[in-house]
């Protein structure tokens, strides 16, 4: 099974929807890349060697900035995070910044395989986590797109003046906002026009419903799991999953132990695989992807401690009867489909 998983992943490398390594670079090194070797750093879940061992072919690096920067220096901080991701992807041959669905097409990879000794290039993509990063400015949104950002999570754990978060009580911003305001709808429409993916992780139920109804393009959940399996506010209820299927969007299932296991002490690969099974039942495997949230949370299931462990998940799904086509979809094809349609 293990070999099958590896073989599969060699052919269809993972596109992971969400990783907060850039945040760690800020916290640990003040974005000073000269002080760290990305290849072997071992303080974090992520490093280049582990990504390659995990058969990760493309990674969305989150340029998250704390909610507490809302109405303060969120824009500046977001630009700094975008800058550190770009410098990182520029400094290492193993990484390459990509901004289109063609950028990580399989054919492109196989050419690169011959060029890079000892490894394949990992495509870097950029995602903003939290609408507070645009400071309610469509111009800022456009400029982020120009800089290469390809998704924006509409909220993090705080409301913006135009969208509601699923987290209550962590921050006290804009408490009366529900769902999407009129301006929030403008934001969604502008994202459609630009070709930026709309990410609904962290958003409230009403925000997700509103976005799903007005977006002309498929949307994503870059790192959320199934509410029916564990009723955490970060997870997606069945009816929204059904909307998502109609929308032809994708939920990139996340590995955060706290949202997987609802307080159960034992959280392992099987717990995670239950979420996959459930979502496949409700929305079909073509609506599924993977968004680990490594380096963004602390607790991961046993067996999935860092970014080298993805094959173990694929192994488990194979064991549960998932076939290769479905798994290739989960690994990359579903996401590529969504990305192409958004473009």
């Amino acid at each position: 099974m293990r070999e099958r998983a590896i073989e599969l992943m060699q052919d269809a490398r993972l596109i992971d929807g969400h990783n907060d390594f850039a945040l760690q670079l800020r916290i640990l090194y003040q974005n000073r890349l000269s002080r760290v070797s990305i290849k072997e750093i071992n303080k974090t879940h992520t490093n280049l060697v582990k990504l390659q061992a995990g058969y990760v072919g493309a990674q969305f690096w989150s340029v998250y900035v704390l909610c507490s920067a809302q109405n303060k220096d969120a824009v500046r901080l977001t630009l700094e995070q975008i800058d550190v991701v770009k410098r990182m992807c520029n400094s290492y041959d193993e990484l390459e910044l990509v901004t289109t669905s063609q950028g990580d097409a399989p054919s492109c990879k196989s050419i690169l395989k011959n060029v890079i000794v000892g490894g394949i290039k990992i495509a870097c993509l950029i995602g903003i986590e939290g609408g507070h990063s645009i400071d309610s400015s469509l111009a800022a949104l456009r400029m982020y797109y120009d800089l290469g950002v390809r998704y924006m999570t509409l909220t993090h754990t705080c409301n913006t003046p135009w969208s509601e978060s699923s987290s209550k009580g962590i921050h006290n911003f804009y408490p009366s906002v529900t769902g999407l305001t009129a301006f929030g709808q403008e934001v969604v429409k502008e994202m459609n026009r630009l070709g930026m993916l709309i990410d609904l992780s962290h958003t409230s139920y009403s925000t997700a419903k509103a976005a799903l109804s007005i977006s002309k393009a498929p949307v994503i959940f870059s790192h959320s799991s199934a509410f029916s399996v564990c009723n955490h506010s970060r997870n997606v209820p069945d009816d929204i999953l059904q909307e998502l299927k109609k929308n032809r969007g994708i939920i990139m299932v996340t590995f955060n132990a706290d949202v997987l296991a609802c307080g159960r002490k034992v959280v392992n690969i099987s717990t995670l695989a239950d979420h996959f099974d459930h979502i496949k039942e409700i929305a079909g495997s073509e609506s599924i992807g993977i968004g680990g949230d490594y380096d963004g949370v602390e607790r991961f299931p046993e067996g999935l401690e860092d970014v080298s462990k993805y094959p173990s998940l694929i192994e488990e799904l194979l064991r549960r009867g998932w076939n290769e086509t479905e798994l290739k979809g989960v690994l990359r094809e579903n996401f590529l489909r969504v990305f192409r349609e958004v473009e």
Partner: protein
Amino acid sequence: MEEQQQPHSTAVPPGCFPPGMRLLRRHGGGWLWGGWSPSQTRHRTQAGKLNPQPSQAGTARVSRGRAAPSRRRWPGGSVWVLVLALALPSTGQQYLEEAERIMNSTPVIDGHNDLPWQLLRKFNNQLGLPGANLTVLNDTHTNIPKLRQGHVGGQFWSVYVPCETQNKDAVRRTLEQMDVVQRMCDLYPETFSCVTSADGIRQAFRSGKVASLMGVEGGHSIDSSLGVLRSLYRLGARYMTLTHSCNTPWADNWLVDTKDENPVHHGLSAFGKMVVQEMNRLGMIVDLAHVSVDTMKAVLNISKAPVIFSHSSAYGICPHRRNVPDDVLRLVSSTGSLVMVNFYNSYVTCSDKANLSNVADHLDYVKKVAGPGAVGFGGDYDGVTGVPTGLEDVSKYPALVAELLARNWTEQEVKLALAENLLRVFETVEEVKRTLQDTAPHETPIAFEELEGSCRTSYGYSNGASTAQRPPAALALLLALAPLLSVLF
């Protein structure tokens, strides 16, 4: 009295205006000249006492073989004077026509125009509003028909945001101004071509469009962040004026040279030097308009690439601290840099009134002190309210060029000032970027204590220190944050 103009002593490339064919200074009530205009195919020789000089073969016009010595063909002196007296009223027109001819192939690249700020003030950047139609907008210095009439071929649009945004929303507002310029280019594609390189400007010239670039006006726009500086470069900004009329945490502005403010950094702080170095590495032109004299000198000494003053004039004529003093002009000359003369009355005559001739005085002055390679145009249109008679709006550049021609500027010198000097500086800046391409980006953040304002967070700075990271301390911070993180994610 007839004055004989000597050929210019500064290097005039061969094949240019032959020395014998010069424009003479004012004589009595009108102008005498010994040149030619496009509307007349015959040559005129100098009326009067200039030494006849053989025409140079290099210029196509001269190759008609009409050497000055063969003046015998022409009627005698008094008839000449009569002819010229009759022709006098039209010589001004001839300079203008000559100016237009030159500008047809070498339009002006102006260093600084604040139309984007007007778009914000008047329309909140809503370019779709009917009143914002740039083909008919009539209460600004700038609109599309005027740009055409003025032979404007290249424009650095200022993405200025006021000093009061410093430590507040300066970054976001700068992004908004950059966005409005890009949308302007998208909305009027027959007129504007948004470009980011010297080659881009040349291509726009060839296609007859206004090459449009962006200049950040004031270091407060980057909020002391090199990451933001790099992002603005990636978004297309190609110069940054280091300060507007306020200090940044790392550079002093011109007001510290007046009674109004005291110097803080006496030029550039250590971080300020990193900003300049990073700009050199990126290939972003350093602009020294609005900075203090110490800042000017500090930059001219450390920058690896030539710099510009995008809209400043000559202190030697009008001792306003926004202008460039002579010793700095000499540094401008020795570094191959450029002063793009500002038309604002207060900087031209140090009073609230000025005329076109006063502006030409500044251009003459800079040419004299710093050389013809150091002169340019930086009108500051739509950034100021008092502009000179004769230069009321952006359609008037040809009139100014005509004045320069009347003052004996050669065609080559005029072309240098119009565009070639800026292109040279820009290309050198791009070359310096290439030589620096293997150097690493600067990544030392500014010390947190150097920053002001409460609209900022401090995360990423461990324990307030911006230098050495000791792993245990950093881990302690991470562990301290961990419970918070796990709740958040």
